[in-house]
């Protein structure tokens, strides 16, 4: 491209941490003659739709399973450019110190977004709190086969989970929200997703645009050591770089 001519790159993102991370690469791209416009969006459908329809050049908010599901159901054509970070999901409590202390009939709060449901249930299954009917495909609460502790599930808005932590025995919380609520995922989580999680957050574009020069520059910038450092320092383990 022409160095003098600034090229605009519009990327949809959720506020934390995606928009904050993107904010860090702005100067880097500026040097390359690319003006990064961050469009902050609040739900999980709009950003994909906007990319599919060409309203946005790329988005950065989702993990691969969600993107796949969207493509399948809607017949859209989103494509992963590169993975950036993982936000491991963790379980927190104000009432117990160890997971073994969890009583029978305890209340467990989980995010109400259907996009997180499978992930949460798989995590609980992995920790042995419940048993799912099988481990493939999308999961809902009714896929729970065994519930030895007779746990009661409450589905709440993800952002609200930390606020209601005191109200329940256990809450499974996205790390970004836990962090904002001054919870330390490393110290406070009773258990947390490992780095092996498939839920890496990716930069995504519409199929065919993955070789767009601007997108490539963005991907490159996101993988820079500077960003790695930023993520590690800012999020202190709650958000883990995946590169």
């Amino acid at each position: 491209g022409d160095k003098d001519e600034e090229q605009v790159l519009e990327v949809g993102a959720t506020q934390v941490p995606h928009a904050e991370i993107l904010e860090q690469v702005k100067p880097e791209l500026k040097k390359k003659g690319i003006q990064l416009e961050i469009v902050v969006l609040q739900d999980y459908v709009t950003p994909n739709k906007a990319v599919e329809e060409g309203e946005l050049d790329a988005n950065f908010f989702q993990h691969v399973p969600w993107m796949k599901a969207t493509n399948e159901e809607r017949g859209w054509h989103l494509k992963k450019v590169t993975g950036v970070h993982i936000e491991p999901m963790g379980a927190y409590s104000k009432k117990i110190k160890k997971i073994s202390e969890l009583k029978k009939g305890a209340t467990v709060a989980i995010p109400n977004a259907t996009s997180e449901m499978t992930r949460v249930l798989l995590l609980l299954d992995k920790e042995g709190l419940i048993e799912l009917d099988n481990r493939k495909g999308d999961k809902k609460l009714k896929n729970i086969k065994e519930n030895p502790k007779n746990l009661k599930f409450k589905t709440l808005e993800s952002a609200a989970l930390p606020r209601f932590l005191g109200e329940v025995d256990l809450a499974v919380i996205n790390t970004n929200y836990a962090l904002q609520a001054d919870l330390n995922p490393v110290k406070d989580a009773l258990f947390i997703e490992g780095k092996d999680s498939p839920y890496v957050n990716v930069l995504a574009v519409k199929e065919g645009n993955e070789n767009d020069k601007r997108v490539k520059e963005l991907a490159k910038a996101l993988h820079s050591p500077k960003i790695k450092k930023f993520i590690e320092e800012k999020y202190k383990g709650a958000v883990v770089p995946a590169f």
Partner: protein
Amino acid sequence: MFNEIDWATIWQATGETAYMVGISTFFTALFGVPLGILLVVTDTGQIWEKHWVQKAVATVVNIFRAVPFIILVLFLFPLAKFLVGTSLGPTAATIPLIAGAAPFYARIVETALREVDKGVVEAARSMGSTRFQVVVNVLLPEATSALISGLTVTCVTLISFSAMAGVVGGGGLGDAAFRFGFQSFNDGMLVTCGVLLVMMVQLVQWIGDWFSRQLDKR
């Protein structure tokens, strides 16, 4: 696609919406009417001119109407805990619903009461009615028809507001339509929940219109 409809979820959601909307409509009326009355009677030239009361009530009403519902939910959860013993679930969701809708209905009540013929209020005053009697025996009965249609509007607004009850796990049809329908790409669920919502609104509207017409004596 329609065979994926999870009827158990839908009926539960319908029940939750009916429950939340029913309870919160009741309390909205309970708080909204007195607030609306206060807004009117304490105003200049009215039967209980009290400027500071007017200002105070108007400000409180405006604050509650200014705060986005989602923030209202999260701010009022201690209150919910205190009032209904829980800060989660449909019952807890009624607290922010009421807090959001009551000031709104208060404004509608205000408008309705201001429409009451001043001559009639004068007549009642001239017969030595107390202010309280004027409110109970003149303002409210004369405005009943408008009060009812205002409550219908409010109730319908509550139905669509209650979609946000998902924040505190209140559930309901709107929330189900969004999560199990829209987010899960299940158009069957989406349409079913949507149709049920519209039917609910239509029902409320019919009942409201019927009462309003019965009570309109002009």
